[in-house]
C-alpha cells in the first residue's frame, strides 16, 4: 500500500500506523497482524458486534470498544491487548463455553469450525465456572443429507443468518426468540428443503462452532490418514469457482471453498460443495473396453484397446480418405484434452473436422 491511499494515522499498540478512511479498528489491526479474537466476524460480512471478543482499549474512552464496528478516527490511541481486555475476553469465552454441549467438534464440520475451540484453549476457558443454560434446540429430524443442524452447539453469532442473506442473497435462515431462547431456524420452522435454502453450504463454512456441519465430510471423518488440501477449480459450470479438495490417501473427504478464489471469493453452490463423490464411484471406468465378436464390451489392456481404436480410425481413413474421421472434444476436460484432440485431427489428418460440445 502506498502512502497516497492513506488518509490519516492512529497509534496502534504504541506504533503510529496509517489508515484509510472508512476502515474499522479491527481492519487496521488485522492489516498489522494483531491477533484480536473474534467469533461473530467473517471478513465477507458486515461487522455485527455481537460477540464482544474484539474489544480493544481506546484512550479516553471509559470502557473498551468493539474494534469490528468502530471506525478508526484520526489520532486514536488503541491498545489491542491489555490485562483488562484479556480478562474480559477470558470471561466471555468461559461464558461461551458454558452454553454449548460440545466444545470440540470434528474439523470435517466446516471451514471455520475450529474457531471457538481454538479460542477456548487460548483463553484457558474450560474452567466450568459458569453453569450456563444451553440455548438452541437441534434438528435431528431434518433428513437433508448435507447440512447438520446441531443448535445445542450454537452460540448465536448469527454468521449463518448473515452469510445466507448478505453473501448468498437467499434469506433462508432466520432467528426466533432472544437470550437463552434464541433459535436459529427457517421460515415456518420446518426442514431446510422446504425453505428458501439452496444447499450452497455457506452457513456450514462460516459456523465457528460446528453447530452447522458438512454431513458428507463428517461421514468420512474416520477414513485414516493425514488430511491434504489441493487447490483446483470446480468441475461443474463455467463460473470457475476455486475449491480446496480435502483428501486422505486416495479418498476425497470433502470440499472447502477457497476464500481467495478469484471467481467465487469463498462462495460455492450445492454442486460444487457436495457433488464430489462421483470421482471414486464404483461405476467409474477402470479398464479400456473393446467390443468383442459377441457384440459386448470387454475389459482389456491399453495396448490392445489403443491398437483396436487406431486400426478402426485408420481403416476408415484408408478406405474413405482423411475426411472420413471426425473428432469431438469435451467442454468438461482440461485444455490439454481439447488441444490434443484438435491436434490429432489437424496435424494427423490435415482436416478441420473437429468441434466441441457447445452447439447442443
Amino acid at each position, binding site marked *: 500500500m502506498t502512502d497516497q491511499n492513506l488518509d490519516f494515522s492512529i497509534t496502534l499498540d504504541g506504533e503510529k500506523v496509517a489508515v484509510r478512511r472508512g476502515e474499522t479498528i479491527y481492519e487496521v489491526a488485522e492489516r498489522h497482524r494483531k491477533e484480536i479474537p473474534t467469533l461473530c466476524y467473517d471478513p465477507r460480512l458486515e461487522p455485527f458486534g455481537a460477540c464482544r471478543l474484539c474489544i480493544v482499549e481506546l484512550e479516553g474512552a471509559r470502557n473498551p470498544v468493539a474494534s469490528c464496528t468502530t471506525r478508526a478516527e484520526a489520532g486514536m490511541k488503541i491498545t489491542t491487548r491489555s490485562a483488562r481486555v484479556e480478562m474480559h475476553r477470558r470471561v466471555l469465552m468461559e461464558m461461551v463455553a458454558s452454553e454449548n454441549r460440545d466444545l470440540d467438534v470434528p474439523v470435517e464440520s466446516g471451514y471455520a469450525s475450529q474457531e471457538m475451540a481454538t479460542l477456548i484453549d487460548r483463553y484457558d476457558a474450560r474452567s466450568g465456572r459458569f453453569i450456563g443454560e444451553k440455548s438452541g434446540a437441534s434438528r435431528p429430524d431434518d433428513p437433508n443429507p448435507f447440512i447438520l443442524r446441531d443448535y445445542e452447539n450454537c452460540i448465536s453469532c448469527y454468521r449463518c443468518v448473515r452469510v445466507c442473506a448478505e453473501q448468498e442473497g437467499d434469506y433462508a435462515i432466520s432467528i426466533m426468540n432472544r437470550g437463552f431462547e434464541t433459535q436459529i431456524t427457517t421460515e415456518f420452522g420446518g426442514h431446510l428443503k422446504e425453505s428458501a435454502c439452496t444447499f450452497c453450504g455457506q452457513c456450514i463454512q462460516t459456523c465457528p462452532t460446528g453447530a452447522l456441519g458438512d454431513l458428507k465430510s463428517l461421514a468420512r471423518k474416520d477414513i485414516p490418514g493425514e488430511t491434504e488440501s489441493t487447490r483446483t477449480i470446480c468441475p461443474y459450470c463455467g463460473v470457475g469457482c476455486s475449491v480446496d479438495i480435502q483428501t486422505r490417501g*486416495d479418498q476425497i473427504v470433502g470440499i472447502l471453498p477457497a476464500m481467495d478464489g478469484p471467481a467465487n471469493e469463498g462462495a460455492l453452490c450445492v454442486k460444487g460443495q457436495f457433488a464430489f463423490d462421483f470421482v471414486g464411484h464404483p461405476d467409474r471406468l477402470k479398464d479400456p473396453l473393446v467390443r468383442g465378436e459377441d457384440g459386448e464390451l470387454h475389459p482389456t489392456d491399453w495396448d490392445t484397446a489403443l491398437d483396436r481404436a487406431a486400426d478402426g480410425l485408420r481403416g476408415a481413413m484408408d478406405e474413405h480418405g482423411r475426411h472420413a474421421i471426425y473428432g469431438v472434444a*469435451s467442454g468438461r476436460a482440461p*485444455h490439454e484434452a481439447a488441444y490434443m484432440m484438435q491436434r490429432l485431427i489437424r*496435424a494427423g489428418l490435415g482436416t478441420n473436422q473437429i468441434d466441441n460440445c457447445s452447439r447442443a
Partner: protein
Amino acid sequence: MSNPLVDMEKPDVIFCIGTNMTECHPVAATRIKRAIAKGAKLIVADPRKIPLAEMADLYLPLRVGSDAALLLGMAHVIAREGLADEEFMAARTTEQAEFLEHVAEYPPEWAESISGVDAKLIEEAAKWYGAADRGAIYYTLGITEHICGVDNVQSLCNLALMTGNIGREGTGINPMRGQNNIQGAGDCGALPNNYAGFQPVTDPANQAKFAAVYGRETDLELGPTKVQALDMCGDRIRAMLIDGENTVVTDPDRKHCEHALKSLDALVVIDIFLTETAALADVVLPATAWAETDGVCANTERRVQRLRKAVDPPGQARPDWWILNELARRMGFDGFEFESAKEIFNELCSLSPIYAGLDWDRIEHGEYQWPVPEEGHPGTPILHQEEFVNGRGIFQMITYRDPAETIDHEYPVWLTTGRRLASYHTRTQTGRSEGIDYLLPEETLEVNPGDVADWGLEHGGWAKLSSPRGSVQIKVEATDRSPRGTVFASFSFNNVPVNFLTGGGYDPVTDTAELKVCPVRVEPV
C-alpha cells in the same frame, strides 16, 4: 463475458435475458443479488417465472423464441426517447444512421404483438437500460439455442452499442458459459473454423504458421460442425472420436443421433463412465476425472486457471491428453511425443496470440484473463475498452423470424428445455453423488395450474409429451413458473429423454440447435 464476474456487482441497471442464473450459475447470481441489495435495478426477460424473475424490478414474460422482436422494440424506444449515446456511436460504431432508421419501423406495440409482452413494460425496460450510467446485459442459452441465436446475440450487441454500455466497468455483453471448460475447448481450437486462439483456418498465413509446428498443412476449408457431421455419418463420415460428451442424451433429435452413431464403421469414446454414448462405441477408453488430472481450464470471464490432481485415478484410467497422444502415434502420425500436460499447454501458448503472455508456471494463481498478448501484460478483464477487435462496432439490421416450428392444431403447446440447480447435464456426475437425489429425485413437466385443469392432467400424475420426432412420458408438476400454453422440462434424466422430441431447427450460422423451442402435444396418460 466482455466484463469480469466482479463487475456484476457494479451496474445500476442489470438486464438478464434467457438466463436462469440462480440455478445454472448460482455463484455468479449471488453477485447480482448483492448488486440488487446495493440498489441496482434488475430487468428479467424470460418465458418462465424463474427465481431471477421473482427478484426482478421489471419482469418481461416473453413468448419463447420472440427475443429479437422484444429487443427491436427496446431499441426503438431508446432511439425515440433520445437515450442513444450519440457520442459513443459516432466515435466507436458504423451503420448507426441506418440502424436508427431500421429500428424506427418497430415500435413496442409491434413487439407486443409478437412477444406478448405489454408494450408499456417494453418501454419501461428500454428507458431504464437506455438511461443507465452502467447498464450490463447477461444471457445464456435462452438467447443462443434458437434458429435465430446469432440474431439474438447481435440484437443485444446493438443495444449495448447504441447506449455505449460496453468497454467500461460494470457494463458489457456477458454470456454465461455453461461448462467448466467450454470456453477452453474453443480457446484450444477444438472448432471447425478456428485454430487455437480463434485464428481462422481459412487464412493461409495461419495455415503456414501451424504447418511449421504440426508438420503438415491443414485444409483451408472449414470443417463441418458436429451437427453437420452427425448428418454425414455413414456417408462421408465413417469414424468418430468423441471425448467426454454424452452426445445421445444432450443432443437434439435423439433417434437421429443414435442412428448416426450406429451407422459408423468405428466409434471411439473417451470418458469416465460408460455413458449412453460410450455404450454404442467399439472401443471405450477410460479417462482420469476431475481431481485426478493436472491441467488448465478457462472460465466464463476468460480467466485461465489450473486444475490440480488430488487423488490417483481408478484402475488403468489415464489423462485424456495421454490417450490422444498414444492414439495419434499408433495411427502413424509424427510429432506426438508429449510427456506432460505442461508441455502441451506451453505449445498452445506459443501458438495462440491471446495466450502468448502465458505459460504453465505463470497461471499458477489464476490472475490472468485473456487476451494476454505478451509476457508482462496484466491480462484483459474488460474487453473493447479503446476499440473493437475489428475497429468499429457494426450495427446489424436484425429482423424477427418465427421459430423453425410453431404451435398449431396438432402440436398446440410450447415446450422449452433447460437445467435445474441440483443436477448437472445428463447426471453422469451429480446422479452419482450422494444426496443429490434427495433434492431432485426425478424429472417433471412444469405446467401452469390452469393448463393442468384444462388439459385434464393431474399434479403428480403422468402426461405423454409428443412432437413430430417422438414422445416421452413424464410426471406433471403444476406450477406458476410456467405461463399458460408453455411447459418446461430438463433433459437431465435419461428415463425422461426429452431430446427425443427436440431438433426442429438449427441456427444457419452456428448450427446451434433450437433446444429452447419445440411445439408439442400434452395428453394425460
